[in-house]
Each structure stands twice: as structure tokens, then as C-alpha cells.
């Protein structure tokens, strides 16, 4: 975070700050190319060129063809378009869908809505570390299964799913695979040119791009029923005038991510290790998710005897998350952590530290100190349980 901030921001999984180069690019586009790219005149063509450049930048990050990308307002819309669009278009072949209990609400709630519309959903349980066993997936696939949706990097625990193996299992059964890549794209190498993935959702603001813009990748030949009608833009899949400045920002953020992913992962790995070493001596502390092999930008820890809401307040000025960041005002224990076998209290006490490009070792040191002090304070305040 910039010097002088009165807080320590360790909530990069919720959102990342706009990269200054991205902001510059967006300002330039706003002042010189903020026209309708669908217009058939010189101004429109200038905007269309900006969109084409951004598509090329994003396509390069994902190793796909630029015309395989559809611009959306973010991952939530991409998830909705992919899941609803695929389920509805293929409903005449079968109405069975598969996903995990540990998906983000932007996926879970779409499947719940489809259940109300007559689709049958299998909710797969994770292994204790949050990963999905290929055997668990294959056992759930049926002749009438049309779509599987699995997130690549879990937003709460950082567990990385084996998309190559899971996708191969789907391909064998001719089932579409949608991947929610909101926490993966721009953060870990994602090669959709080689992964067996049919649909992939992503959003710009998770990798230092602007909020309000995302994309959906569709593999060649994958068809969807649109959610909206009117205008006919983007092969009629997602009509509406494109937000050229936001799209330019997403493209620029993708280009920066492509250049810095390797360095980011090394930086985040060192910081996560520092954080883990600093916290692991606290009595009763457990790690939610895998210790090794997880996305290094996320570390989720919990305690069996500390109340989560008080812990969050006692940690100020540390900005971290309890449960799902998109749902952080909820008092409900995290469904993800409950699926990993945590009790309600353990789940409510969970703190997700998510680190980013600007995080420093000094901030991690301060975070460790704040966490230790907060836990000590709350333990001293707590009366013994009744015998």
C-alpha cells in the first residue's frame, strides 16, 4: 500500500488496487477513443481497435484466440452466462449438472436458481484440504450430465484444483467444463490453449485492473443461450455497447500480469511463508486448506476458541476477511470451511490473509504482531465454558 495509509491491506483476494499504468491507459482511452466500437465511422473504428488490442492482450495471457473471448461486467456475469447459458441450451439432452460445495456464491447461487427451474445438481464434497478428487467427479457423471463447474483457485483457501485431470474426465464423457478462474487468471499461469476447458470466467479487478469488466472464454464450438437480448453485439451472446475504457484497462492489466506472474509468485511465496512461520506457534491455530501447493497469495487460518467478529475488529487496522470476502458482512459461517469439516465456531473465527504485489515483509511482520495481540486479548476476555 502507498506510504501514509492508515491501514494494512491484506485483502487482495477481494479486490486489487488499480495499477497506475492501467489507470493511465484508461484515461487516455476515455479522452481519445471513448466512442461506440459498433459504429461504422472513423471514431467508432478507433474504439473498435482499442477493443481488439485489449482482446489480443487478454488472449495472450490465456493462450487463446482473441475471438474466443466475450466481454462481460465481471466474473459474476461470466459465471451466470456460462452456467445458465450452457444448462438451458443443452436442457433437451439432460438436466443434470455438477459443481462443488466449496464454490463461490457467484456459482453456488446460479446452480440453486437452476435447481428451482427443474435442473438436478450434484454438489461434490472436497477432500479435507479442499481439493477435488478426480474419482469423486467421475463417480458423479451420468449419461444426462451436461455441465460441470469447478473453480480453479478457491477464494477462501487458495487450493488449486487439478483442472487438467478434471477436464480430461469431463471430455471423456462429453460433458462441458466451466471453470471459475476469478482468483486464477493473472495470478497463476493459465494456458487455456492446452487445458481441456470449455468455458472460463475471469474478472479484471482481481489482477490490478478496473472493476466492472470481465470476460468469458468459450472454446471453439461451445454454444450458449444468451441471458440478454438486444443489439446483437458479441455474436449475440452478450449484447450492449462495450465499455471501451474498462476493456482497455483489462487488456493492459492482462499484459502487465503476463510479464509479472513469475515474479509475483516468488514474492507472494516468500511472504506467505513468513506469515505462516509467524502464526503457526499460536496454540490451537489450524490452517484451512493445504499448507503446500496452494496459491501463495492466500493463507486462511482459524482458532477453535476465538470469536470471529471480535477478532476482525481487534485486528484493525489490518484489512483482512472472514469467510468469503464478497459475503463478509454475513454472520453465517463460511460454507467453504464447513465443507472442509470445520465447526461453526472454527469457521467463524477464520481469517483469510490475501497478499498482493505491493505487500511488504514489514506489513507481514505487523500483521503477525496484530494477530498475536488480538488472540491474546480475546482469550483473556473469555470466561471458561460451563462444566
Amino acid at each position, binding site marked *: 500500500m502507498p506510504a501514509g495509509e492508515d491501514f494494512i491491506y491484506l485483502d487482495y483476494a477481494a479486490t486489487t488496487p488499480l495499477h497506475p499504468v492501467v489507470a493511465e491507459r484508461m484515461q487516455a482511452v476515455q479522452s481519445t477513443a471513448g466512442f461506440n466500437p459498433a459504429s461504422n465511422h472513423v471514431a467508432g473504428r478507433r474504439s473498435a481497435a482499442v477493443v481488439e488490442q485489449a482482446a489480443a492482450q487478454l488472449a495472450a495471457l490465456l493462450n487463446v484466440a482473441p475471438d474466443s473471448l466475450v466481454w462481460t461486467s465481471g466474473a459474476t456475469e461470466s459465471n451466470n452466462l456460462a452456467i445458465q447459458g450452457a444448462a438451458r441450451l443443452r436442457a433437451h439432452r439432460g438436466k443434470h449438472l455438477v459443481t462443488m460445495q466449496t464454490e463461490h456464491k457467484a456459482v453456488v447461487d446460479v446452480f440453486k436458481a437452476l435447481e428451482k427451474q427443474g435442473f438436478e445438481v450434484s454438489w461434490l464434497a472436497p477432500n479435507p484440504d479442499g481439493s477435488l478428487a478426480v474419482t469423486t467427479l467421475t463417480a458423479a457423471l451420468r449419461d444426462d450430465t451436461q455441465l460441470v463447474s469447478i473453480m480453479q483457485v478457491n477464494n477462501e483457501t487458495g487450493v488449486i484444483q487439478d483442472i487438467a485431470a478434471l477436464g480430461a474426465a469431463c471430455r471423456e464423457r462429453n460433458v462441458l467444463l466451466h471453470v471459475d478462474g476469478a482468483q486464477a487468471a493473472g495470478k497463476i499461469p493459465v494456458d487455456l490453449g492446452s487445458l481441456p476447458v470449455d468455458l472460463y470466467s475471469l474478472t479484471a479487478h482481481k489482477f490490478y485492473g478496473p472493476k466492472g469488466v470481465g470476460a468469458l472464454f468459450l472454446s471453439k464450438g461451445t454454444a450458449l443461450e444468451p441471458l440478454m437480448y438486444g443489439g446483437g453485439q458479441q455474436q449475440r451472446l452478450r449484447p450492449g455497447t462495450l465499455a471501451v475504457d474498462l476493456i482497455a484497462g483489462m487488456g493492459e492489466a492482462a499484459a502487465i500480469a503476463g510479464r509479472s506472474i513469475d515474479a509475483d509468485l516468488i514474492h507472494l511465496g516468500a511472504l506467505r511463508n513468513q506469515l505462516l512461520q509467524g502464526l503457526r506457534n499460536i496454540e490451537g491455530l489450524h490452517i484451512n486448506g493445504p499448507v503446500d501447493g496452494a496459491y501463495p497469495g492466500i493463507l486462511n487460518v482459524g482458532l477453535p476458541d476465538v470469536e470471529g467478529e*471480535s477478532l476482525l*475488529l*481487534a485486528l484493525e487496522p489490518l484489512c483482512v476477511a472472514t469467510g468469503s470476502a464478497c459475503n463478509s458482512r454475513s454472520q453465517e459461517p463460511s460454507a467453504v470451511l464447513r465443507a472442509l469439516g470445520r465447526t*461453526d465456531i472454527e469457521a467463524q473465527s477464520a481469517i483469510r490473509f490475501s497478499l498482493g504485489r505491493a505487500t511488504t515483509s514489514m506489513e507481514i511482520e505487523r500483521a503477525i504482531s496484530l494477530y498475536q495481540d488480538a488472540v491474546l486479548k480475546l482469550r483473556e*476476555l473469555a470466561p471458561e465454558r460451563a462444566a
Partner: protein
Amino acid sequence: MNGDPYNPVVRDYFARPEHAGEVMGEDAAVAFFEDQGMRIRLSAKVAREDIKTLRFLAWGCPHVIAAAEAFCRRFEGRPAAELANFDASQLMRDLAVPVEKTGRILVLEDTVRSLRAAIQDRNTSQAQD
């Protein structure tokens, strides 16, 4: 609206719970309640009908901790008989406790009632001695 779920009083009492702890000794009156996913322990030392020392321990959200601290600040040094005037609804207004947490403040009210009974029992047994 600034989106802060805690008003300045809650923040102050949570940050500096001056009455956190326990009154020790055989003459301490103690009450404990566990409900609504939270625990509260109140302990008091009473001399000549007045509450000389009042302490709390609490496991719960910031509103519960602040409410326990507010209770102690309000009644320490006051006649024990005034515990009957404890007003949970006034406390909720002072601390801007969200309505969905009403049950938690009522647990504090139950604990206060229990403390009152413990003080009366102690006074009765001391009078009999």
C-alpha cells in the same frame, strides 16, 4: 451512512474494556450464562449494599463485549438494589446494537438478573452469619 457497524462507544469500550477480569475471593458474587453462541461471566464485590467492584468476562461479538463493559461502568459504585433498573433496551440504543443481535443483549440481561440474585443470596447468608 459510513458503513461502520460499530458506533464510537462500542469501539471505545471494545478497545479499552477497563472492567475486564474477575472479582476473586469467597465474598464475590458471580453469575454466568451461556446461550446464543456466547458466554458472559459477571462478578461483583458488594459492601454495605454498594457494588464496590464489578468485572466481566465475555466471549462474543464486539457489541456483547461493549455491552458488558457498559454495564460495569454504569453500576460499579452504585447500590446493588439499582441492578433492578438495568435496561437492556436503553443499552441497545446507546450502543446502536443491530436488531438481529437482540438475543445476545438479552443474555446479558439474564446474567445481570442472575448476579442480582447471587448478591441477594450472599447478603442473606451474611446476615444469617
